[in-house]
């Protein structure tokens, strides 16, 4: 389990056909991402960054190439299997939070589990712990409209953790936040990574990307260059109780 690639991508290509024009969004991307690492993807618009994110997030299938998430070959999956692997293996954090309006904080956190057929009553404590972790332990029954942007994004982070994913995919998580709240959110993500969570972050901001171990710069559908910010040291063993570890590092008492 130590440092082995959790994501293994080889020769990934994506071809869009827009009317008569063929767009080659990805032109043979190969990359490995190790478990527990923090990777940022940067690049100008049109670089294939968004497509890369969609493929990584199992929202889109590559035209050619291999994509292994854990030991599952995503490139050959059908629609239902993709839904399933997203629900089981991935956590999403979006720029615009994307909480569901009619649900409370706890219910929002629970949504990914619902689609895996898990009962809220069995996982209510787990969801409440996660809400507490992101600092919303007092607002379990609030609805998204009653929360600030930063709070909403923290609910989204809690939601991304609920299924104990292999990888958290964050798409410009601080794009809609002011710098102070943005920093808080990024600090929280650092803590998650320290506790062993693999994070892939897509951003325009160099100061955001600085927090990652590696920064992949994309250009014209390929990884143009790679910058190592700090050395990634794989854990000796997998942190099975990452939640308690973070709670401890944040000085939180288990509620």
């Amino acid at each position, binding site marked *: 389990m130590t440092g082995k690639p959790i994501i293994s991508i080889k020769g990934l290509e994506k071809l869009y056909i827009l009317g008569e024009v063929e767009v080659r969004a990805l032109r043979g991307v190969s990359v490995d991402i190790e478990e527990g690492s923090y990777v940022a993807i940067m690049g100008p618009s049109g670089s294939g960054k968004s497509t890369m994110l969609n493929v990584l997030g199992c929202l*889109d299938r590559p035209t050619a190439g291999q994509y292994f998430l854990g030991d599952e070959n995503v490139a050959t999956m059908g629609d239902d299997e993709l839904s399933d692997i997203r629900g089981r293996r991935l956590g999403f954090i979006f720029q615009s939070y994307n909480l569901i309006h009619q*649900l409370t904080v706890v219910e929002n956190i629970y949504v990914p589990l*619902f689609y895996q057929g898990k009962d809220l009553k069995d996982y209510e404590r787990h969801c409440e712990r996660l809400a507490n972790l992101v600092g919303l332990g007092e607002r379990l029954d609030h609805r998204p409209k009653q929360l600030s942007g930063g709070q909403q994004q923290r609910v989204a982070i809690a939601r991304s953790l609920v299924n104990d994913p292999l990888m958290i995919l964050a798409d410009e998580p601080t794009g809609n936040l002011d710098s102070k709240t943005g920093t808080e959110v990024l600090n929280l993500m650092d803590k998650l990574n320290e506790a062993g969570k693999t994070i892939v972050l897509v951003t325009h901001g160099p100061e955001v990307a600085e927090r990652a171990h590696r920064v992949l710069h994309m250009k014209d559908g390929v990884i143009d260059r790679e910058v190592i910010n700090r050395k990634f040291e794989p854990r000796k063993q997998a942190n099975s109780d990452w939640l308690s570890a973070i709670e401890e590092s944040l000085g939180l008492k288990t509620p």
Partner: protein
Amino acid sequence: MIAYRAIRIVQLGIKSLLLHKMRSALTMLGIIFGVCSVIAMLAIGEGASYEAQETIKKLGSNNIIIRSIKPPEDTSSGSSGGRRSYVSEHGITYKDAGRIQGTIPGVGSVLPMRIIRENVIFDQNNIPVQVIGTHPNYPEMTGAAIMRGRFLSSTDEGRQANVCVITVSLAERLFPYQDPIEEEVRLGADYYQVVGLLQEQGTEKQRAQSGNMEGQPLDSNIYIPLSTARSRFGEVVINRSAGSFNAEKVELHQLTVQFHNPESVEAAVPQIESLFQRFHKRKDYEFIVPLQLLRQAEQTKRIFNIVLGSIAAISLIVGGIGIMNIMLATVTERTREIGVRRALGAKKKDIITQFLVETVVLSFGGGLIGVMAGVIIPLLVSHFTDMKAIITWWSVILAFSISGLIGVVFGIYPASSAANLDPIDALRHE
């Protein structure tokens, strides 16, 4: 597990609908009206046809009633000035009665009636009545009840006795202060002794509804033996009305033929028809076959139900289209939510279920309220008006299940268009 999930999905549906209370309520209104009108219309239709059928049943489903009518070519003769002494001779004859009794199989008994308009006089009271000359079996055949005394007997018939039976309502007006039994009343030139009081079947109610223009109740009747009627009043009936004068010679005004069972009635109808065609040159008679009327009434009711039902069904469909319209708008509005749910692991079928459940909750909720309104409205109608309304359980079930079905049918399209959204596009949707 599955039950829990189902409850969760329904809860979620209700939550989403409550997010737009006004919109959901207005959408439901279409279904409410539809379901309500199905039940209410069918109930009122059912009630109307029930009343018609009851009226026909009173005539007796084992009976054929034959009535004398003025043949068509005679109808204008009364008022044409030059023919002073014209007497219209038509109608059922005593011989017809005998022939029916003698030749038609399955006949139980035959009840002849002569109906003469005359005024009855007792003391200061002078009341226009129908004098009915008939046989002693009148009460059994018509279901009339003897309230006091006795009905006419066969001895009265044989002796051409001057006795009469009067209806209770006539007795109340003719003898406000005396006991009518054994009193003598004058009819035309003769006196008749009252031997009994009779109550016609089901006339109380009819009178209440349709007391006629002269203020004379329908059951102001005097019954006298048929033989007496023949000898005292003769065969020619003279009508003087509004200065004009016409006379008609009619032997029997009505003949009720009772059969042993309803099957013989049907077999006998063509036989009696051919019998009459042979002996009557003109069509001066008409048949009333309650059994056939009953069938016609049932047929009419069926058509009535279909027409009412389809009008109501159209309103249900309109309601369904309303739901579909709103759900399509909702899908567009919630595209982002759909994208998020898909990203978080929802399969296409989860999205379909979610939106289908919302539609079905809307239409079932509307159906439930509609059933309540549809049950209450007919009750109010029959409480405040003379109209009878009968709520049939099948119309309730029909309307309710159609409302559910409409939810499914009109929900499938919006739900599947939601599920078929591309998750990536849906997530980017503003």
